[in-house]
């Protein structure tokens, strides 16, 4: 798949594309909000099977008659590099200085006070002295990028990754931090990046959700469903939640209803609805709802096929680690495999979580190593390493990496000091690492840096808004023009901030 080079670029259809012009319109087109029902010039065309007409026209490259960009129609502001996004999220604040950003000074000054911050009080309280990472960093790839030896398989990918080492968060609390990292706002109620993408582009397939969240087998991330919320965007833009352990809710026909009965019931329903709509010509919402039942039926056929991992060869399972004796790793590996199957079938945005919420014991269910960094990360890294590395390799081998933007994110970093009386690290919102890969992202580079100890972003600080300005840019959008009115403001994923990080892209 290559990126098309047109001014207004219809996003490519699903991998099986081609004869699905009618279906390209898909969910986004058919799914009407009351808002869209108002004075929308397209309303007359939507719903009634004529949605396909809109879809075809736009696929031919038009915006609207005035040349304005329209949301949800596969149009972008300019030529995109990415057709889809995979966002891997390690909740709990995965430590930048123990995974991705090497700090020799921590080894050199281990046990000494952090200069200028001897009385540092952070989220859980007082901090002790500097603490070196319990594991050595090792040079990897052609670039020689140093990452933790805890991630031996991820090492193979560093030459394709642009590390951003100078991320900053507004909050030092997990829940708001995760929500901030996903929505650009610390408070709940705002749309996640996936929801914005769904709103901006609409669907690229006719029978699967546009945006999917795959929570970890250990549970939901901090702040749970707010991380994949549609916020104030219409309900169809929220993520559909599933994972390899848990199918889409209400998808299958109930066990006690025979397929003949189901069929006959739907047939009658269609007759009743047709009769009702025929008496009310012109009511697009009625047609839209009829169409939504047809879409639901198609989804019932397609979704089980996607989630059926038994269709994958044994060697693939082996490689991902889906049968690993470590049950957590096996479960995450299945979600990685599922993520690949979703992406290759045209799901636009996949949120893949590795770990979950804050439990009764810090650092047990997620990367929140407050007290016992070493045992905690020796639990989490083996879960993360092989399945993630395999997923990335698999995307690359299948050619999907060319137009799939991969993001690795966490909500903030950790302190270079140990927490007083412990061998763990407290929350550090002032510096942390995220990375990007694929779809025109420069590989083997590190952008920005924290100070010599890893305490604060120092070189080229990057905000969450900069990060998403870049994501939207790769998707073909000017983040300042992708807006939605809500309670007094034209809202944006990037709030009133954000600069595209051109330095991490191979193109301008």
């Amino acid at each position, binding site marked *: 798949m290559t990126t098309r080079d047109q001014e207004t670029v219809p996003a490519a259809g699903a991998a099986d594309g081609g004869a699905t012009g009618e279906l390209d319109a898909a*969910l986004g087109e058919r799914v009407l909000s*009351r808002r869209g029902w108002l*004075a*929308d010039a397209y309303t007359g065309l939507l719903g009634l099977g004529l949605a396909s007409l809109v879809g075809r026209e736009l696929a031919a490259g038009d915006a609207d008659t005035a040349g304005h960009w*329209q*949301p*949800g129609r596969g149009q972008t502001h300019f030529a995109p590099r990415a057709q889809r996004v995979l966002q891997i999220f390690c909740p709990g604040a995965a430590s930048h200085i123990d995974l991705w950003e090497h700090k020799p000074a921590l080894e050199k000054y281990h046990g000494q006070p952090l200069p200028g911050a001897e009385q540092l009080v*952070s989220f859980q309280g007082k901090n002790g002295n500097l603490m070196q990472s319990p594991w050595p960093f090792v040079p990897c790839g052609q670039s020689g990028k140093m990452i933790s030896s805890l991630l031996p398989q991820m090492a193979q990918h560093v030459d394709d990754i642009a590390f951003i080492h100078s991320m900053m968060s507004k*909050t030092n*609390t997990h*829940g*708001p931090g995760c929500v901030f990292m996903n929505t650009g706002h*610390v408070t*709940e*109620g705002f749309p996640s990046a996936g929801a914005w993408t769904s709103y901006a582009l609409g669907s690229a397939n006719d029978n699967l959700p546009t945006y999917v969240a795959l929570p970890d087998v250990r*549970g*939901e991330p901090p*702040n*749970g*469903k*707010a991380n994949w*919320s549609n916020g*104030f965007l*219409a*309900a169809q833009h929220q993520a559909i939640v599933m994972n390899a352990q848990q199918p889409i*809710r*209400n*998808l299958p*026909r109930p066990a*006690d209803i*025979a397929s003949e*009965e189901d069929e*006959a*019931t739907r047939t*009658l*329903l269609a007759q*009743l*609805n047709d009769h*009702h709509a025929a008496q*009310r010509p012109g*009511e697009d*919402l009625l047609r839209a709802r009829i169409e939504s039942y047809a879409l639901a039926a198609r*989804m*019932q056929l397609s979704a089980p096929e996607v989630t059926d991992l038994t269709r994958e060869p044994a060697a693939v399972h082996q490689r991902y680690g889906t049968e690993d004796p470590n049950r957590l790793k096996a479960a995450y590996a299945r979600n990685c495999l599922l993520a690949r199957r979703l992406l290759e079938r045209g799901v636009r945005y996949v949120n893949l979580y590795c770990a979950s*919420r804050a*439990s*009764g*014991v*810090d650092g*047990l269910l997620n990367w929140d190593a407050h*007290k*016992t960094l*070493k*045992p905690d990360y020796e639990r989490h890294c083996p879960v993360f390493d092989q399945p993630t590395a395999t997923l990335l390799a698999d995307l690359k081998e299948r050619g999907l990496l060319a137009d799939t933007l991969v993001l690795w994110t966490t909500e903030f970093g950790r302190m270079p000091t140990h927490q007083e009386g*412990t*061998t763990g690290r407290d929350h550090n919102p002032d510096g942390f690492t995220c990375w990007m890969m694929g779809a025109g992202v420069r590989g083997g580079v590190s952008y920005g840096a924290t100070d010599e100890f890893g305490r604060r972003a120092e070189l080229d600080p990057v905000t969450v808004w900069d990060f998403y300005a870049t994501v939207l840019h790769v998707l073909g959008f000017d983040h300042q*023009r992708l807006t939605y009115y809500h*309670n*007094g*403001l034209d809202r944006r994923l990037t709030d009133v901030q954000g600069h595209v990080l051109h330095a991490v892209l191979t193109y301008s």
Partner: protein
Amino acid sequence: MLVRDDAQRHGRRIPGTAGGGWAEFLDTRSDGTKHMNLGVRIGLAAVTLAGSTAALAADDDPARFFEQRVKVILVERCLACHGADRKGGLDLRQKDTALQGGDSGTALEPGQPDASLLIEYVESQEMPPDQPLSADESLVLRQWVEQGAYYPPVPLNPIAVSTSRRAGYDWWSLRPLADPAPPDVASTPDGGVPAAWTEHPIDRFVVAGLTAAGLRPSPPADRRTLVRRATYDLTGLPPTADEVDQFVGDARPDAYERLIDRLLASPHYGEHWGRHWLDVVRFGESNGYERNVVIDNAWPFRDYVIRSLNQDKPLDQLIREHLAGDVLGPGDPEAEVGTAFLVCGPYDDVGNQDAVQAAQIRADAIDDMVRATGEAFLGLTIGCARCHDHKFDPVTQRDYYSWYATFAGVHHGSRDVARPDERRARDERTAPLLARKATLAGQRDALEQAIVARGEAQAAAWEARWTRPPAARRGTEETFAPVAARYVRLVADGVDTNPAARTGYRIDEFEVWSAEDVPRNVALAHGGAEAIGRNPVAEDFADAYSPSLTIDGEFGATWIAASPELTIVLPEPTTINRVVFSSDRQGAGGALAEAAFVCEYRIEVSPDNRQWTEVATGADRQPVHAAHRRQRLLAAAGTQEERQELARLQAELAATDRTLAEIPPLPRWWVGDMRPAGGPFHVFLGGSPQRPGDSVVAQSLGALGEYVPAYTLAPDAAEADRRRALADWLTHPDNPLTPRVLANRVWHYHFGRGIVDTPSDFGFMGGRPTHPALLDWLARQLQTARWQLKPLHKQIMLSQAYQQSSRYDPAAAGIDADSRWLWRFPPRRLAAEEIRDTFLSLSGKLAPDNGGPGFRLYRYLQDNVATYVPLDTHGPDTYRRAVYHQNARATRIDLLTDFDAPDCAFAAPRRDATTTPLQALTLLNHRFTLDMAQAWAARLEQDVARATPSHGRDNGADVAGPQVERAFRQAFHRLPSAAERAAAAALVTQHGLPALCRALLNSNELVFVD
């Protein structure tokens, strides 16, 4: 005609509308939504339209010329930089600073435009930098300078004047309520104005708008449609088949009015309109943010809202109670419960130790109250002035922080809400018991002290027996004579963090070693061993604290003891002689409670899990802490009698506690925890509590200063006075916003769309009123009716506009697709709650309800943070109206969420009505639909059986016919057509009546209201 030139907005006139003094244009937003903007920026419109050509004639009154022509240019195009910001050193707000000029020199030479830099820059189009002034505009400035550059004595206030870029104090919604007379309209022979539309004031306003837009009203709806519409509108429930028949057959002239009266008197009215209000005030029953813990005592507010609406409590009173119920009616639960409004929004309760973050969290909590109050009652997005002055509305940061100072004493939490006599009665019952408790505790402490003192005297003897080092978290070993065992158990008698506790300790590994030449750890899961012990359950991740973690061969994760015993089942009987156990083998946890360890213990073995033999004990170890030492002395030095006496005292204390617990506590509700406000307060520059700016006090908003009596409280004003002052100001008879916003909300819920289509935003970014005069008329009616809603409902519903048909008309839709001019009644989809309530109603399962604690359609899990898992089956305890659902934040509840019930993170002044495939899946396949279909089918069968003679029952077709008929009448309030009847009967015959019910529950006709 005014068209905003903002690049994101493209002005578009509605075809067929006449200007008529208003400048109408459609405002196409970048998100694809549309806002009809009627240019009611009165001041601006008048000025620009009136003056567009003629004004170039020099005005001989410089003051008038300045007011009408110059001011708007300066404010709109110059003051953003050359006002308070003094860019280039230039301040054009008043004459003396303007005359001083800026860094480049003299800006203004009165009478000499050619010597004035301002004119030079403007005419050379160097200024303003974003877009040059029009030729007209620069000419105005030139004339103004020529005439002497008149300035009024008071400096220009950039936010006082509305411009094409922002609203000022003269913004339409901030002006006093007009007292408009309904226009005189005469019926026209062509039916454009039917005679029936010339009487009711509302109809006269509406039909005038229709005529101007080239539209005409629709004919009246049929009675079946009308009764269904009105019933859903006022109660959120469908009418029964009998109610429809009764109304359709009621020939009395006032039948419709009687219908409205009956519906307004129904207790279901308050449930339905209460739900609307709860949307507006962002009522939610969990705290949101990371922990999102459910709040179980917020429901009294929901019941209070429902009750208040049913009683038709004046809304100004309701609003005042929302802000200051505890101040207005202390000791009166019915008033005090209102303040739940302030604290029913989301807030962060995570307990941050970082002082900077803690201050930010507190500021966020108050921000929620400021925004909720501004949006719900004033339709002003005051929250936008948190970091800087509002970009679009005349709200300053000072305004924002004066409200911050108003709410600064309000904290999220509960209060005892009880009348004084209830408090007294309870105190009288508890006082003697509390005294008794104190006496008993004193006796116990004295006795313990005496025993310990005796123990201390002989301490050396006891200590001599404590020969071994204390139990150690990093590893405690016990060796013993070889013994054959199948079961090995650890029994805890004390934990190192609490000598009296027997649970709550952790074990990261428990090893059992065989007595062999080469000992083996036989307590390993992968070797076939099993560990048994209770642990706190994290339901969404059951193994989180499991005892299996003690035999997994790894030290990372720990079992948390919820039972004193940990039992290891060996794979086979084995001779053993050693155990090793720890809570923190790697020493990572240090002294933290997270690594709590058992320190007083026994090790026992058994061949059969019944007969236990003690093989080791920690009793001869040194105590880990002084408290443990004391506990041991207490146990050792007491006499038999003393121990009995201690046990007796303990038992009596426990009994007293039980008696106390039996006395019902005072009602404790989630209505806010009011504390002194503190202060002084400051503007936070950039919104950061770390950057205090000017000091502020609680005071009224500047924007309405001209019309509503202003107040400014002393810096040390009492907390209660702050909220009372704001409550009084919001509901002051001269405050135009509150009644306007409220009247618009009522209209919005009746017609699906407000006269202003952004019901919580009457500012610049919000919509403009389609019918401004009607809005003011409605607001006046509301005030006249002493802020009671029921008369307003009735007035609106008696209009022809409300009673007209919803029939679609392509020609009219071509002009006004959304029927904002009301050429038809806008049809709507039922809201999520209405759909669920309708299912329950049809099935006959809807429970009569008096409120009380809500029901849940989720399983609530809490392990530090909360998780909400939607239920696959909804039991009969959930067969209540959806308004009684305990709505938590950031949850997904199948039918409710799918059909756009909002997450209550923000207020939801209007609901979406989306159409998605997920809705279809949920309505087709969730157990709730199937249960409802079955219950409804059973009810239909019973009804038909009762009505049908017994000889017909055996014949399926004979029964199916009446069942189908009855089902259609109940669901659609009509009989099936012949084709429908045949198809439905065929389905019933082949697959049973529940199949038909399932189809009908999914039908469009059920979920849309004409």
